[in-house]
């Protein structure tokens, strides 16, 4: 279960949603076959108004809206009793968010069969790492220390 500790629940959605929805769907289907899924709240999509704290004066304001999809489910597990899971995603795919809620429930309670969902976490992590690398590269390749400009090290400018 080291992968469990490796990724706190707060990161699961990020990792899973980095993968093609079809992968998530397949795993959710398998789990749904083992455990009866009850919708505690109909999965739905809508909007959320996003408040930011302005970094100049610390005032709260709304920069705009983001799409949101959310779902909350309960898996009936004979062994462990009912297990609740949920997902809220900046996205508008109702099907996907329900699948994620099922994965969330299974992994959180480590229900038999959750291992495949943990594998998805690992796969998602590689995708996320790749995009992190891309972003870091954008910074690393353009880092500039104006304090050093004009010195021997960098005489190409001014």
């Amino acid at each position, binding site marked *: 279960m080291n992968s469990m500790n490796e990724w706190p629940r707060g990161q699961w959605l990020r990792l899973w949603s980095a993968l093609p929805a079809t992968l998530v769907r397949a795993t959710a289907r398998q789990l749904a076959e083992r455990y009866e899924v009850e919708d*505690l*709240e*109909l999965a*739905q999509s809508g909007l959320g108004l996003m408040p930011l704290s302005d970094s100049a004066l610390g005032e709260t304001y709304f920069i705009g809206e983001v799409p949101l999809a959310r779902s909350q489910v309960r898996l009936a597990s004979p062994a462990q009793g009912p297990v609740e899971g949920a997902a809220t995603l900046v996205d508008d795919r109702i099907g996907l968010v329900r699948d994620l809620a099922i994965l969330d429930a299974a992994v959180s309670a480590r229900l038999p069969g959750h291992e495949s969902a943990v594998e998805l976490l690992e796969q998602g992590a590689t995708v996320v790492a790749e995009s992190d690398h891309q972003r870091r590269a954008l910074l690393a390749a353009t880092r500039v220390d104006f304090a050093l400009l004009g010195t021997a090290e960098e005489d190409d400018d001014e």
Partner: protein
Amino acid sequence: MNDPMTLEAPRDVRMGVWQPPRQQRAFRGLLTAFSYPGRVVRLADDGESATLLLLATLTDGASRLADPERRLAEDDIRRLGVRSSAVESADFVLCGAAHPPQMTPRLGSLENPEQGATLVIQVPALEEGIKLRLTGPGVEEEQTLRVAGVDPAWWRLRDEWNAHFPLGVDLILASERAVAVLPRTTRLTVEGVH
């Protein structure tokens, strides 16, 4: 939040008064009742409550409801998704005909008279009881309305609250199935009283 999609209640209550098409029909009934003061409009079908239906049609998380006499079931208040509030700060006040509220409801301001409250008064019966003679906008010549079980103090208070147009309150008299409306602009005389 008064939206069938977000209710965690069992299927059957999601039906009926919580359904958009039903609320659209109910609103058109209310529109007639507000446009033609004193006309009795049957709002609810059998098994429905006119009061709950009109509240479901008009209120949600954006409105404040005062229910000082606890006339609504907790479940229904949750399904309505309204913010509960005190009488003096409520957009909608639900009360019985027998005793008027002790508090003065919101009357709005000169700049924002629309903030005057809407009072929903549950009456034992419409089309029987004392006779009211109505004139004003929405009434061609004169409209008569019969209503039972209303404490006369109500009419005195209504006159006080509506003394300074455009400030005032608007009344919805709701029987089990029907409603009649008295906007702040309606002039009212009670038969036999002067």
